[in-house]
């Protein structure tokens, strides 16, 4: 399926243990197929996700990031997903201001019963990121800073 001409993006998914991780398990038990580009990092709750991890991912060469947890009101810990949502709204504005392409971050709710939604989410994100191409801008900024651009020397 793969060829050298098709860009295969690297995507990391930060998901909660109770809803989306279990939903992705259901995708497996339902034998629904999706792209291999996404790798899951398991968290107890989306409320746990430190959004600096998103920046770290981009700095390390990720082309896209998925954040997904329980639907509002379904949080295993009552309110972790609300905190994550609030943080995401604020963080998104800051990222946008900083010039980070927020189309590369997909924020979603996938419940433990939504195996097919997880497959769709992965496939859609992969094709969207593929259309955007490799995310080199963030890396360029990082390189630029490393060369001393921050001090106005470059």
């Amino acid at each position, binding site marked *: 399926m793969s060829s050298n001409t098709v860009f295969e993006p690297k995507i990391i998914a930060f998901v909660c*243990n109770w809803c989306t991780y*279990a939903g*992705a398990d259901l*995708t*497996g038990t339902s*034998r629904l197929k999706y792209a291999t580009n996404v790798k899951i990092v398991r968290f107890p709750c989306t409320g746990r996700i430190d*959004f600096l991890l998103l920046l770290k991912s981009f700095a390390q060469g990720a082309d896209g990031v998925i954040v997904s947890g329980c639907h509002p009101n379904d949080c295993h810990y009552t*309110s972790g997903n609300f905190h994550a949502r609030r943080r995401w709204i604020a963080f998104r504005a800051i990222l946008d201001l900083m010039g980070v392409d927020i189309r590369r971050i997909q924020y979603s709710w996938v419940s433990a019963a939504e195996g097919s939604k997880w497959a769709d989410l992965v496939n859609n994100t992969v094709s969207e990121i593929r259309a955007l191409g490799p995310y080199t801008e963030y890396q360029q900024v990082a390189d630029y800073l490393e060369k001393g651009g921050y001090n106005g020397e470059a």
Partner: protein
Amino acid sequence: MSKIGVFICHCGENISATVDVERVSKEIGGMEGVAHAIDYKYMCSDPGQTFIKEAVKKYDLDGVVVGACSPRMHEPTFRRACAESGLNPYLCEMANLREHCSWVHEKSEETTDKAIDLVKMLVEKVKKNKPLDSIKVPVTKRALVIGGGIAGIQASLDIANTGHQVILIEKDPSIGGHMSQLSETFPTLDCSQCILTPRMVEVAQHPNIKLYTYAELESLEGFIGNFTAKIRLKAKSVNYSTCTGCGACIQKCPVKKIPSEFNAGLGTRTAIYVPFPQAVPNKPVIDRVNCNYYKRGACKICEKTCQVGSIEWDKEDEIITEQVGAVVLATGFDVKGADFFPEYGYGKFKDVLTGLQFERLASASGPTFGEIRRPSDGAIPKKIVFIACAGSRDPAKGIPYCSKICCMYTAKHAMLYQHKVHDGESTVFYMDIRAGGKNYEEFVRRAIEEDTVNYIRGRVARVYEKNGKLIVKGVDTLLGGEQVEIEADMVVLATAGVANCGSEQLAQKLHVSYDPYHFFAEAHPKLKPVETNTAGIFLAGACQAPKDIPETVGMASGAAVKVAALFSNDQLVREPVVAVVNRLAPPLYSTCVGCFMCETACPYNAIEHEEIKGRDGSLIRTIARVNQGLCQGCGTCVAFCRSKSIDIQGYTNEQVYAEVMSLLND
């Protein structure tokens, strides 16, 4: 350097059919820090687990990664295997090669590459894992039950019968709750008091139950297994240790016109009173708001009447402290009064009653001794109208939910009326008949078919008075929306069941969550219906949502089993996935700056203030500390912490960053 053992499972063919497991184990075997990597057909089988156990000893492994199915499936299995071989179980992690890889991708190079990445991630994570010990919390094997209705009674008896101590508190002078007010119960029409009062007596006589009536919870501190409850014993003004319950004081009390709460305002009581004849305890209290002595400083007739000198005028509220390990909330519900309904006369019409008032009219112990008589003139109503869904299922009234019991008790009321007034005519206006339950539908059919109750599907727009009659104007939607007007002698509203007043304040005292209607929230709508989000606090009965007696009793027994299970061990053992605030040597003590952002984030009130004091006892700093009994391990505090001083065991920043870095560093 780490010595990690990696075990790749074929899962029969489930993994090996699409993933080249040999390539996975070979490539992982070449990773830095991996001492041993193999693949095997079934890792979870006995021989598979033996491979792990032997490898732990042979290679002196300090970490294990099993690439197999979902950790939600077999993580406990492999952690147990590690523990049996002497490796701390929390140094074992699983890579999900089945649900997240082999089952969702076709056989290809990419699939195997992804499998390798997934295992690598966990290898990098496990390098950062620290040995953890499960958390042990001591358990005080004594329960507090709040509310002495049927829910609290059942929960108390069930817990007490397992051999554990129970403290039951009830805010009213007697236990019994709403069930003691009911005349008959659906769907069998057996007398409510006949089945309830033996249980009330059993509570009072049970050696394991300590009953405090006329008492309310003042505060609750602590956490699961270790609560400290402060209970306010309201002044009864009567010494129960000497009072014989003869009732002479009640007969002589000159203040006789106080509306009786037990009779839902239809009867009267005295200022010194026992709420009802079968009350437990059957001893009076003085209602200080209405008593002549407390109001005007003179009277004391009861004191003169009392042969044993039990009246205590100067008695004050007393606060007692009890140590308990679990709490059952059974505070029940309330019903909306007729005054809630402008369209039905704001409660101004004496013959417009609530369902609870009709119960008292129909009850043999009620104000009319079981005869259905109009409160206005004492006449027997010949035409009666029951209005179901008064308030319930009405978003405009702020009560969008179904109160669940009204369909059944309205059918029961109509039946009781027909049984007592043979020439009477009863009509029920309803929206839908919801008679889900064993023998419930049959019961409603019996009301319609055998007792000829006239059921009209439609709503009542207005009730007004005209010439001593109540004119009920409604609509019959099954007759194409035809207007219906009935001249009734009495109207009974099946008013909505609502949360008990004060439930919001109580919930805040206990740190349990509640819904928009102030009913207490269960931990999970399906799988944890009796638990709350606060560990060690359980729910029973209608304080969670309106429900009928069988359901309430079932829920109370469920809560009791949860309490008994908690009390079955001397110590509570929990997974160590909890947050921890770092501690360092003086003079730093911790990187925590004491901003307590974590406190605002925590849904479980697990953040405590820890004061660091010098040798002279002076306060140096206040930092956060996590109560491991309360923490559930969501980690929301970790993301909130600005100084990165709080971290969650099992998902530390170090671990998750290592995972992310491993994915991208190639």
